[in-house]
Structures are given as structure tokens and as C-alpha cells.
């Protein structure tokens, strides 16, 4: 990785991030990686399982919101922690990704901060710079 995938943004009550990529799809993948880095130490997560995750929305901003929140659904329902995101289809209003990770194992995974949701507050998708910004409700 030649470039930093994401950086965290300070926010009094919550945490945000700016994610980068060679393409916008990669920035979306890196935003997901950043979100799971807030939740756990991804070094301890292995790629044992995969899920194909889809997101649909009316625009790119909505797509980012939907994508990240769909991943949180898998965390709540299947306790899945993801660490790799291969985006296989990426459009203005739709994305499909193969996500790799494993179920939470309290003996090996150190969970850090719970993320309730991605928010629309200051959410930004920069299509020319391949950069996205999102603030989470913690």
C-alpha cells in the first residue's frame, strides 16, 4: 500500500474518517476498512468467511451511507468482522462487494469502539480526488 488508506477525524462525541483510493471504489473499500479499524484491531482478524454485500441508493452519498450501514448489519446479526473488501461492481447508485473476515471471537479479537451507524453529517464523496468523508455515531 503506497498510500494511506484513511485518516481519523476528531469529533467531540463521535469519530469520523476520510478514506482515499486510486479509484472511488477503492475509497469506498478503504472507508469500510477504516470503520472496522475503529471497531477492532484488524491485525487479529482472519479471512475465514466471506459475504457478498450489496448497496443501493439514489446517489453516491447515499450509497456510501448504505454500504457502511449494511456492513454493520452483518456485525450485529452474524457478529462478522470484515477486513478485506473487493468491490466487484461499482456504479453511481449500486455496489456489490465480496467482504472477507470472520465471526467475532472474544478470546482473540479485541473490540475497541462500538459504531452505531454512519451518518449523513458532513458526508462527502469526492469523485475527482477519489476521497470520501463520513462521521459515525458512536
Amino acid at each position, binding site marked *: 500500500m503506497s498510500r494511506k488508506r484513511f485518516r481519523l477525524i476528531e469529533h467531540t462525541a463521535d469519530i469520523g474518517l476520510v478514506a482515499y483510493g486510486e479509484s472511488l471504489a477503492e475509497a469506498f473499500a478503504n472507508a469500510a476498512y477504516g470503520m472496522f479499524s475503529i471497531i477492532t484491531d484488524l491485525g487479529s482478524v482472519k479471512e475465514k468467511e466471506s459475504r457478498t454485500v450489496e448497496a443501493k441508493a439514489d446517489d453516491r452519498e447515499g450509497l456510501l*451511507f448504505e454500504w457502511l450501514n449494511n456492513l454493520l448489519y452483518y456485525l450485529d446479526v452474524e457478529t462478522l468482522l470484515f477486513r478485506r473488501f473487493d468491490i466487484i461492481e461499482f456504479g453511481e447508485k449500486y455496489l456489490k462487494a465480496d467482504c472477507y473476515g470472520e465471526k467475532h471471537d472474544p478470546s482473540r479479537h479485541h473490540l475497541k469502539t462500538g459504531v452505531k451507524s454512519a451518518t449523513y453529517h458532513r458526508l462527502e464523496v469526492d469523485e475527482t480526488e477519489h476521497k470520501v468523508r463520513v462521521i459515525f455515531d458512536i
Partner: protein
Amino acid sequence: MAKWQGPLEKLDGYRWQIPASYKKGMRVPGLIYASEDLLPEILSEEAPEQVANVAFLPGIVGASMAMPDIHWGYGFAIGGVAAMRLDDGVVSPGGVGFDINCGVRLLRTNLTGDEVCPKIDDLMNALYNNVPSGLGSKGKIRLRSGEIDEVLTKGSRWAVEHGFGRPEDLETTEEKGEMPGADPARVSSRAKDRGVPQLGTLGSGNHFLEVALVDEIYEPEIAAVLGMDRVGQVMLLVHCGSRGLGHQVADDYIKEMVRAINKYHIEVPDRQLACTPVKSPEGQAYLVAMRCAANYAWANRQCITHWVRESFCQVFELSDKDAGLELVYDVTHNIAKIEEHQVNGKKEKLCVHRKGATRAFPPGHPEIPKQYAEVGQPILIPGDMGRVSYVLVGTEEAMRQTFGSTCHGAGRVMSRTAAKKKLRGRDVLDSLAKHGITVRAGNLAGLAEEASDAYKDVGKVVEVTQGAGISRIVARTRPIGVVKG
């Protein structure tokens, strides 16, 4: 971080106004409750801008208000109160938040610190083991297929009917723990999927169980009515919400509202303020789903209450009755409600958003429990885990000024990332131990995020609410044991 550059007019020692002329599009002024002491923190971040932004929302009445624990949120500031007319006003899921009906309940006991302190380790272990907490925790409750719908309509009553708690608990819960007008058909299957495994769990973040001692009683007569009899009495606080179910309901409807702002031609300065007319089908659907999530949160706190009682009884070998453990009250601090208020001398129904704010109804109000008719609605204000918490009651002045609302907690002053950089979980744990506070926490980094230094002094916050007249300070408690999710 941006510092507030806009205009701010001092109304009195506790109230500061952002005039509606500050930004084109503000329909009413912003009104911040704060002391001179608290103001610099508030103005050092973006919360005042958010107060001004909320003033854009159609149908807003009076002012876009901020309680003294205000801090930078997403969309709405945390500590925000906004009341909208039903005819031309809007409802905004962002004005409730993702953790719908995050709230606090307070239990009283017949025990004193002298009895509990020698066994505090056992008690904290029992609480930590009996109440599932922390990120990724699964509940102990197994719902039948479709039973989640009953939880969403009946709330606390579902829990009591299934053996979690006492029938009288319902009397001392806001809305009796069961908001009417909750139809589970308006809640997505994704939200229900998230809710099923998490019922009866504390969660993580700032959610906690706290064993506390009554530290000071300011209004003995009122305190006695609330069952707070003496200094040194052991109390218990529960702070949690609607877990993934509430988060998903908020997500689902925020998406819906982002569409609705175009449909209804509403302009908002931040998409997180997305909203829709209260009377629109989208607005009604949101309110119905939000009530379901609120009922889930009440059922959640009710189940936790049952395990808290079991834990006390186990450790102190007491019967349920001898332990006391009556529910003093349960308040929600993330909600939108249709309530009747005086507007320009006339009674009018309004949609009151409280986002990190607590209802503060006065003595005699029909919505409060009979036993509290003479003293007013109890208000539970947890501080941070190393310092004190307060019990207040509501006032007539709150009805006149803030649509019957007051603050909800201490309010953060330090970001989570800054807190983690500055403080190590282990040191926070040691410092709490030095202050006689026994902590059980799932993770130490999370503990640092919630350290005292990250919060305002809750004492200063409640003083503002009393000074402004919107609540009355009854008693103070200090923690001796904390379970952090």
C-alpha cells in the same frame, strides 16, 4: 476546530440567543442554556452552528434550543430541543438520533454503603456476569419467531409479562414503557434481525450500570417521595438504548427522508437534518417505527432491571422485597413526541424532538405517575463514571420555556480519539479505584474514551437548569461501582 464567530446575545445569566438574522433561512432564534463558565467550551466547537441549522426546519416554534450539556452532534447538536407545529411542521429522525430511546433508569434499595461496600467486588462480578454487555454481546433471551413484534408494541409490559420485573415498574416508566401508536409493520426486517439477538443487552460506548450512594440531599421532602431516604443509601443507574434495532430504524428512515426533502421541497443546511412533514405518510411511518424502537429500548432496560435485582439478591442473600430495588423512574433522552404545550397563550399539539434532552414535566401534569403528582417528574442526569450524578424534578418554568425539557447528562468536551491519546485505560481504571470506584469493563480503551476528563462537570450543567428554572435539583449520588459495556 472552528470557533463560533456568529452573534450571541446574552439574555440573562443562563440564556444566550443566536438571533434569527444570523443566517438567511433561520425561522426562529437559537437559544443556548449555559453559564459564563460553560460557554467557552460550547463556543469552541460547532454545536452553536448546529443550533442555528435546526432553526431552518419548517414549523419550528419558539426557538431552536440547546441545553447546557450541548455538544457537537451530527445534524442536531446533542442536547437539542426543537418543537414543531403539526400542521406545517416536520419530524426529523436526526432530531431523535440513531439510538432511539436511549435513556436512564434509577432503582432505589434498602441497603446502605456500609452493607454493600465490603461485598462490592462480588456485586460487580454478579452484575457483569448477569447483564450481557459490551460490543458483540448476545442476549440471554430467546424470542419465538415473530415475538419481536410483541416486544415492539408492548415494550416494558412484554418484559414484565415474561417475568422480567414487577408490574409496578410500568407505573414509574415514562410512557409506562409502552408508547401507543407502534406498528411493527413499519419496522424493516433488517431492523428486527438486529434486534432479536440483542434484547437484554447493555451495549457499549457510554452505556453503563452504576451502583451509587446517595451523596447529598438538597430537597429532603421531594427526595423522600422518590424513595431516596438518607445519605449513604445505595442506588442503581442503568443507561442504555434500543441497540441495533433502533440504529437500523434510524438508518431506514433517514434514507426515506433524504428522498422526502426533495419531494416536499424542504431545504436543510445538512443532510443529516433530513425531515418530512409530520403529517406526511413518511413522517407518520417514521413516528410509528420510532415508537416501536422506543418500546424495544424500554423492554431492554426492563429485562436488565430484572437481572440487576437478581444480582443484588444473590450477593446479599436477600429476598426481592427486602432488597427494595423499586424503580424510581425511567426517562428517555432521545425521542420525538406529540405533546400539548402553550403557544402564544393557546394550547397546541407539537412534535417535540429531544436529542440528548430529558422531559421535565411539572407537578400535577397528567403524564406523570400519581405518586409524583406533588413533586414533579423525576429527571435522571448521569455524570461521567468518575464523578457524581443528579436527580432533579420538572417545573412549570420548563413548560413555559423549553416545552417541558431539560439536560440529559454531562456532555462531552474531549473527542474520543483525543481521550484515548491522552489517557490510558489502565490509568483510568487505577484512578477510579483510588476514588473507591470498582469497575468491570469489557475493554480498557473504551474506558479511556469515557474518562471524567472527557466530560463537562455535570454539577455545573444542572446548576444552569436550576438557575434558569427548568428543573429543580433534588439529590446527588456518587458511584462506587460501574459496569461499562
